[in-house]
């Protein structure tokens, strides 16, 4: 079963402010499509100060929905309506010392009930502005609707891009099949087809680069360093790459500089970071000598 925090369990087993408030003058009724839970929040608001004098909840839902409702009422009692509207679903989750990713929507339902109740008090009609879909990425709690919208809005076409924009798939990568399915569907609507080979695998970790990618990345690292050297009237050029050995020519003021070996160390460090593997940067004069 779920890994609920002690606070979640405590608020579920001993819910605070359960039941409807007498003489309520603000009522919010919302439900979560993703799991069918629903919540009615009743508030008694002081008309002069707009302070929430009392809050009560009635919830049709699971343990974390009941705990989130209980937490919400505890948080907002005594607040002004404006202050209460600043309570986010993350505040509710934090109050409960966290919720499982799959259960974050319970805290969202709490925040929406609050918004609906305030709208009801002010004679406005509350309209929900977000749609929730099936949870795809469990590591970062990203749902299908968000992924789909992001793909459309930004013209994404690869799993890697989806990860960069939404974080979905950036954790354990188990949801990549699900992300690919959404990409396939959305791209098909646009008359395109999903090409899993369109992007290179993410450079992070131990992913192996092709020779060409590796050379480009080394060149880019050196290009990035050159302006610094040029400011001191020096320069560096790539001569050759032989496995783990990278040979460069130090030119201009760098040539013969006493700091040349320190500069080489700096270049080496930069390339190591960019490549994610250990390499040695050496002066071209060292070429052909046994390493």
């Amino acid at each position, binding site marked *: *079963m779920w890994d609920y925090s002690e606070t979640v*369990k405590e608020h*579920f*087993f*001993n*819910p605070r402010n*359960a*039941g409807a408030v007498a003489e309520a003058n603000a009522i919010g*009724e*919302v*439900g*979560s*499509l*993703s*799991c*069918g*839970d*629903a*919540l*009615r929040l009743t508030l008694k608001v002081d008309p002069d100060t707009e302070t929430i004098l009392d809050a009560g*909840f*009635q*919830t*049709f*839902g*699971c*343990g*974390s*929905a*009941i705990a989130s409702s209980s937490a919400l009422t505890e948080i907002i009692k005594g607040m002004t309506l404006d202050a209460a509207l600043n309570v986010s679903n993350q505040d509710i989750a934090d109050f409960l010392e966290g919720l499982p990713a*799959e*259960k974050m929507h319970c805290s969202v339902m709490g925040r*929406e009930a609050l918004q*609906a109740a305030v709208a009801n008090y002010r004679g406005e009609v*509350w309209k*929900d502005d*977000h*749609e*929730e879909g*099936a*949870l795809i990425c469990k590591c970062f709690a990203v749902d299908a609707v968000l992924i789909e919208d992001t793909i459309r809005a930004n013209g994404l076409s690869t799993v890697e891009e989806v990860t960069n924009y939404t974080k979905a798939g950036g954790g354990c990568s188990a949801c990549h099949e699900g992300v690919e399915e959404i990409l396939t569907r959305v791209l098909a609507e646009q008359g395109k087809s999903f090409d899993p080979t369109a992007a290179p695998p993410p450079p992070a970790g131990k992913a192996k680069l092709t020779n060409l990618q590796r050379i480009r990345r080394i060149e880019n690292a050196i290009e990035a360093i050159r302006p610094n050297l040029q400011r001191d009237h020096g320069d560096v050029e790539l001569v050759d790459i032989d496995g783990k050995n990278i040979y460069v020519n130090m030119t201009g003021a760098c040539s013969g500089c006493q700091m040349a070996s320190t500069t080489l160390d700096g270049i080496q460090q930069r390339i190591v970071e960019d490549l994610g593997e250990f390499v040695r940067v050496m002066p071209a004069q060292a070429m052909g000598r046994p390493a």
Partner: protein
Amino acid sequence: MATSISPDAEPKGIYLDNNATTMVSPEVVETMLPYFTEQFGNPSSLHRFGDKVGRALKQARQQVQALLGAELDSEIVFTSCGTESDSTAILSALKAQPDRREIITTVVEHPAVLTLCEHLEKDGYKVHYLKVDGKGRIDIQEYMDALSSNVAIVSVMWANNETGTLFPVEEMAELARSAGVMFHTDAVQAVGKVPIDLKNTAIDMLSLSGHKLHAPKGIGVLYLRRGTRFRPLLRGGHQERGRRAGTENSASIVALGKACELAMANMDEEKTRVRALRDRLERGILAAVPNCFVTGDPTNRLPNTCNIAFEYIEGEAILLLLNKLGIAASSGSACTSGSLEPSHVMRAMDIPFTAAHGTTRFSLSRYNTEDEIDRVIEAVPPIVAQLRKLSPYWDGDGPVAEPEKAFQPAYA
């Protein structure tokens, strides 16, 4: 509004979730232990270390054969689990009959079959999902209409894991045979609970899972009728006559054999004592709790299963409060599953969502006692009452007037 239930549960607890998994019988554990130590040999080996293991596997195969009423022990193929057996059966039928591009199954199958079928649809296969009525029964006419020479395999569960409702698989297998179509049944919930006599049926393939009948997890069986065209899922060895490569899980196979022998010996107890306990539990709860009802087909179901829908409350909350008292059950509620999907079985039976969310499954075994059942009957009503006090659909002693109208939340 603090809870009035005190956590004075006994440490052992009351286990009423036997459709999820079962305790391994002490006799089964005892039987399998030597196969981790002195009988560790590879049954394929010629020497004395392997020889005895080979003979133990033969005995286990015969014990499974006896429980299933199979004609031959060579029709028993050991696998790693029920899911592997299901996948092997369906994929084999498709591979062996490449011209047949359709599958017949039901909307209430276990995900082991359903998810595979949905996946196969993406590969262009056509799947007929037989619908069920409010009691979880299929329409045999709809089934007959779907049978054709385009169908590679019918895969229909013997008993439903959530409601215990039995499908007429023997009759359906006869119809499939008449139409020249292979028939597979996922009997994971039925084996050991209802008598099975495969040699007198037209069933070509059957899946079972050890851990549902007091054997360990990680062992399953695919029954494969002699002469059924077959293509293995795993190739790479001569084990199981080349039909399932991979070194035999000998300790678990021996354990499953013993568990089948025990299930055979206890079959009458399932039909009598376990059924009586289940009925006692069901009657006790229905009498004490207003606004609840049994889901599925109460007149035609497994003797150990009882699924009750408690209206206007949610299943996970029920389970958490039961668990606090040391009582283990399960729910069709969306919130208890990792996927957050409400039970597809309850949806298929058209159970209103205010009831489907509160469905609670109690599944018994021969290890349950009357005293345990009486304690559960006592525990359930206050839990339901406590949660209804929190429910927006409930007021005092009953549901609010016209609940679906009185409370109409804005869904997002």
